[in-house]
């Protein structure tokens, strides 16, 4: 038995060495990767200092052109939208990292129903932020919910589990070269999308997601940050009451909502869209100018 315990200790010691050395290598790869999200997350965690921060999913990442909004508002703007982060947990992590070292004047959160829905992906993509685990207590609280907290504490390598392949390919493929102030334009599609209608569907609200949405709003209010929700256009004919639950929640907390999802400017205009729910660069530029004017009016009624 003694021999076995000795063997186990040896294995643990060796694993610890592999894990720490491997973790350091992965950290280096992560910091030098030019994939679609790592440079943005690095900027969010370490160096964000803009007045206006735009947050959300790929619909934020590819819809808001900071330069256009900046010219209209006269304030510095950064697009902190992260592809695939369609849940409030990921957004809360982003906000916690930002608020740790900087207080922006305005935060715009591009919202979707998956932010609250019981059925949609819950902790998916929160792993994108795992390389920065341990730097921010509030952000780390999400990992308690996802069940990853102790695994991240235990293993450095596990923190790169989600991003390892992107970080390796990101050394060669420079997807970030076209990005400007966090905005990564979607390319013009080869074929414009077909029209399809989204039906309004009842969904159950996930209590944990609701709790984190409240935390998100409170964190902004406590720091005196002006918070605004936005819903950018969709090519599909979305029912007008599709976002009722989200709007109800915003109204309960006095959060203004800029809603363009049924705006006539974009419906039936496939030339602006990359697919049913994403604008390409041309559409994004048009939308950003409209959005910037409306945001300006909201700030200075």
């Amino acid at each position, binding site marked *: 038995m003694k021999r*076995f315990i000795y*063997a186990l200790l040896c294995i*643990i010691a*060796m*694993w610890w060495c*592999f*894990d720490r050395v491997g973790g350091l290598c992965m950290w280096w790869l992560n910091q030098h990767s030019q994939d679609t999200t790592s440079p943005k997350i690095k900027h969010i965690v370490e160096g964000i200092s803009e007045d206006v921060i735009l947050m959300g999913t790929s619909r934020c990442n590819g819809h808001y052109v900071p330069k256009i909004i900046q010219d209209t508002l006269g304030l510095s703007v950064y697009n902190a939208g992260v592809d695939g982060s369609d849940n409030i947990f990921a957004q809360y992590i982003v906000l916690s990292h930002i608020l740790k070292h900087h207080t922006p004047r305005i935060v715009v959160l591009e919202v979707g129903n998956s932010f609250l829905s019981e059925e949609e992906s819950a902790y998916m993509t929160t792993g994108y932020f795992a390389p920065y685990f341990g730097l921010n207590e509030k952000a780390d609280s999400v990992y308690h919910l996802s069940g990853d907290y102790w695994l991240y504490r235990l293993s450095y*390598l596990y923190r790169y*589990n989600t991003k*390892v392949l992107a970080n390796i390919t990101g050394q060669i493929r420079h997807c970030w070269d076209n990005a400007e102030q966090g905005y990564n334009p979607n390319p013009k599609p080869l074929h414009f999308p077909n029209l399809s209608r989204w039906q309004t569907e009842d969904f159950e609200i996930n209590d944990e997601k609701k709790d984190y949405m409240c935390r998100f709003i409170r964190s902004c209010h406590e720091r005196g940050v002006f918070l605004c929700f936005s819903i950018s256009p969709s090519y599909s004919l979305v029912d007008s009451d599709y976002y009722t639950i989200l709007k109800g929640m915003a109204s309960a907390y006095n959060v203004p909502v800029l809603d363009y999802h049924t705006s006539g400017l974009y419906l039936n205009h496939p030339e602006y869209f990359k697919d049913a729910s994403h604008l390409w660069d041309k559409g994004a530029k048009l939308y950003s100018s409209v959005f910037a004017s409306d945001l300006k009016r909201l700030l200075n009624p």
Partner: protein
Amino acid sequence: MLFNSITFLLFFPTICVLYFCIPATRIQARNLFLLLASYYFYMNWEPAYALLLLTSTIVTYIAALGIGRFDEKRKKRLCLVSSLVLNLAILFLFKYYNFLASNIEWAIRASGLGMDIPEFSLLLPVGISFYTFQALGYSIDVYRGTTKVERDFPTYALFVSFFPQLVAGPIERSTNLLPQFKQRHSFNYEGAMAGIRLMVWGYFLKLVLADRCGLYVDSIFNHVDEHNGGSYLVASLLFPFQIYGDFAGYSFIAIGVARVLGFRLMENFRRPYFACTFGDFWRRWHISLSTWFKDYVYIPLGGNRVSSIRNYFNLLVTFIVSGIWHGANWTFFCWGTLHGVLLCIEKGLGINKQKYTGVKKLCHCAVTFVLVSYAWILFRSNNLSDFHTISMGLFTNMGIPYTQDVGWGVLCASFGAILLVVVKDLSVEYNWKIASLTTNHQILQYAYISFLIAAISLLGVFGNNQFIYFQF
């Protein structure tokens, strides 16, 4: 409780410590403890399923007592038939009834009559096919006189429910496992290290190989109409490794867990994709099931000691039954039939693995792999229509493989993991020196285990994914 869950990683060391705390001389106490642990393990899925497990255990236990008690052959046979009928009836009700009912209903409607056959909304109990076959194997062995009647109920119940192999095999034989429950098992360093090595390799196969390949395979096979031949080809290349990683991974973990506790389970996989004939493939793939079918279906049908035509018939029947064992779906039926037909053709042509060496052997391995992989498409397809779409798409609709949601990264990682597994299996198959280094040299053995754990934490897919074979 899944092997790839945190709960199991806490459960197993606790069981080990408590098991070895009970003195080795107290065999009954140890068996009772393992029996309770096994039922706790099984009840983690659904406590009610334990009743079925218990029913199957009691039925086969009593039947075996009856077989042992009576001298008259007719009465012995009655006991055996009762055991077979009761166990297979439970299996049929939970696994095949709805399938049969819907097919009969379809046939009746097709003939112009209107009739509803009621269906039950029953969930398939985890591992029911595995423990039912293991228990039936015992009944038949007792009837044939190849194993003694086990009169101690806790020991027999442990044989049916032993947690490492309860839900997905290996399907153990009473002649191998039952006697081990009567032996003293003192802690053994070499056994424990071998067990841990097998477990870690099993976890690597499951989490890095199978689940990584599964990300791509599922996205194609679950949305067949949206993809082209290029995507089908890549998915069809990945699935053989997904199912190997998934099932062999489970078996390695199961054998490893048992080995740490001091038990030796039978080998279930022996590098099946290095097989150069179909016969060879079935001697390497799911060995415990293929030998079960050989001993309890093929040989009783007459095996190969009959005319050629009857021999082909026996082969075909055995493989059709084996296909249906995997699930109540026409895809499994056709998959079993296809394997049966291929084996008959191989037998008819006199293809034998002993004949081939060098390049010829390599060519035969490649042909066997391609045909086995093609048959796997049937196995993985959700229905025959999907299989048809994929088969046609492979030859008529080639294009760039789909990568949008899963990304090239997933594909690269999948093929990287495949390469690693192939090299590792090659080293064992051809006795390369490096294979023996990790087992004979102590420090290298520790390094090998810790490296695999590090690789799993970096490249594994975590999310409590079910093992594919649990559904059978």
